[in-house]
């Protein structure tokens, strides 16, 4: 426990100091890494702890991005818009969870996959509010320089990541985390022994949505322009899963390790071969599933 806190603080110190010594390319990479970390840690709640194969990350991300963007269009300030995006994502996750979490296995997976598609269609056709297929421009924050802006969004994303990490940390040590692990192992047995499975699963789903929603809103402000196919991209869901699988599902640091590894691969290998980018992602997934289904951290010494 104490060691865990120390590791976490050391990591945080490094992440806080990072923008001081690097150029804007690395800053951008760092911001993306934190965003991926949020996606992976969030998926870990529902996919890693509860064992439900959710593909809803893209839906939460897009919903958050649009909630934040539309709120700012109506004149709300950026921070309020981001918080609002979190609230919208959480409420949506709650409603969706009550409906979908009664399904299991493939049915749940595909139903959650479909949600992003439906939201994209709706956003596409609600032209008045969202600009439809033309996309939506966001106000550019007034700051001294472009570098300041980049640093600002790095710290904003870091804030979301810290929130998500704290939530994972707290959940793992709480009744909720214990209940979720029971559900993953045997849902019927957990139900019989008095775990309120519906409530627990819905809570996990909300946790898996809220930070992704905020991250989506921060992303929207960061890039100043969003359009439906960009923010409702199913690859957000897939990448979240791949990162967690890469690092180790259900663990505290696994999703973070996975996010760093994944981004390194994405940036160092694939950016040189842009035309085979998705194919390489596919290959990575296939290799991962075939040879490393328990993640990198499964190889730690002293772990079964």
């Amino acid at each position, binding site marked *: 426990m104490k060691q865990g806190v120390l590791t976490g603080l050391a990591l945080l110190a490094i992440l806080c100091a990072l923008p001081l010594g690097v150029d804007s390319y690395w800053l951008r990479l760092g911001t993306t890494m934190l965003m991926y970390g949020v996606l992976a840690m969030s998926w870990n709640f529902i*996919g890693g702890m509860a*064992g439900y*194969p959710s593909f809803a990350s893209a839906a939460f991300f897009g919903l958050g991005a649009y909630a934040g963007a539309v709120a700012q269009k109506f004149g709300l300030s950026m921070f309020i818009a981001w918080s609002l995006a979190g609230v919208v994502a959480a409420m949506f996750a709650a409603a969706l969870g009550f*409906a*979908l979490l*009664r*399904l299991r*296995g*493939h*049915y749940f*997976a*595909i*139903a959650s996959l*479909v949600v992003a*598609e*439906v939201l994209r*269609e*709706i956003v*596409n*056709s609600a032209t008045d509010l969202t600009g439809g297929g033309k996309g939506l421009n966001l106000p550019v924050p007034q700051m001294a320089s472009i570098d300041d802006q980049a640093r600002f969004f790095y710290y904003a994303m870091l804030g979301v990541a810290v929130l998500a990490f704290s939530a994972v940390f707290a959940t793992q040590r709480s009744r909720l985390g214990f209940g979720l692990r029971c559900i993953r192992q045997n849902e019927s047995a957990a139900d019989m022994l008095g775990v309120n499975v519906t409530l627990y699963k819905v809570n996990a789903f909300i946790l898996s949505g809220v930070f992704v929603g905020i991250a989506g809103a921060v992303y929207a402000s960061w890039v100043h322009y969003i359009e439906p196919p960009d923010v409702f991209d199913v690859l957000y869901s*897939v990448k979240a*899963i*791949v990162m967690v*699988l890469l690092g180790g599902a259900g663990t505290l640091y696994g999703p973070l390790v996975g996010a760093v590894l994944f981004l390194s691969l994405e940036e160092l290998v694939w950016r040189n071969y842009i*035309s*085979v*980018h*998705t*194919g*390489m*992602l*596919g*290959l*990575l*997934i*296939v290799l*991962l*599933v*075939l040879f490393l*289904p328990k993640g990198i951290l499964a190889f730690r010494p002293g772990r079964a």
Partner: protein
Amino acid sequence: MLTFQILANGLVLGGLYACIASGFSLVWGVLNVINILHGSFIVLGGYLAFYAHAELGVHPFLSILIAAPLFYAAGYALQGALINRMIAAPVLLTLSLTFGLDLMLQNGMLLAFTADFRKLILDPPLGVLALGPVVIPVDRLAAMLLALALTGLLYLLLSRSRIGRAVVAVRMDREAAALMGVSVKRINAVTFGLGAMMAGASGPLLATIYPISPLAGTVYLGKAFVICVLGGLGSVPGAMVGGIALGIVESFGALWFGPEHATTLSFLLLIVVLLVRPTGLLGRKGYE
């Protein structure tokens, strides 16, 4: 009168949908694997028909005869080499595996065929058939009838042939089938091969109606999934009923709400059916 026209459109669409979904449903039902590749197999079958028509002048309906064995072999090999290793793994892993393979296939098709939309145009055109006030394009009607014939063949294969009965046996009870001397691994590969064959064979049919592009498979995959949920899993009649139901719902939905909401409508229908009747309209636990 418009109602009859829409109904006819829906039925034509539904016949094609049944063909798309029957193979997907078979793989899902027997292997408990969601084959994300299914949509891309359809598109690949479409490209095969397109190039056979453009380069060699082969009629797209005839290229089914080329596509079917090719896709069967590819599906058999894929299951034997890769998917059989993961067959007992959790849902997420098998789903991710076929998803990864699909990303590779899509990327490959994008490189090989470019992102251009292509359209197979029959020469001479087949014209239209007028039944009183209802007008049906002959090429669509022929495609639908062929699709239904293919689906019917699959049904016959499963219910009459020795190998088909073995597939059904594995679906009903894996262990018992193994005890009766069925080689489950081989039947897994046969099943996946049959699923790929149905996808590859419906590609040329759809190519005569819809434009082809490398990433169009996602739409077909979504439809196959909705149909399986509507009709119930793993049975050919279920895919038939689900396909025709979806065809009719989409046609009337396009009329009432506008065609841009067709996808949303079918997915909402999916979610409602999943919640109200998760076994589907014809669903039962066992096979027919």
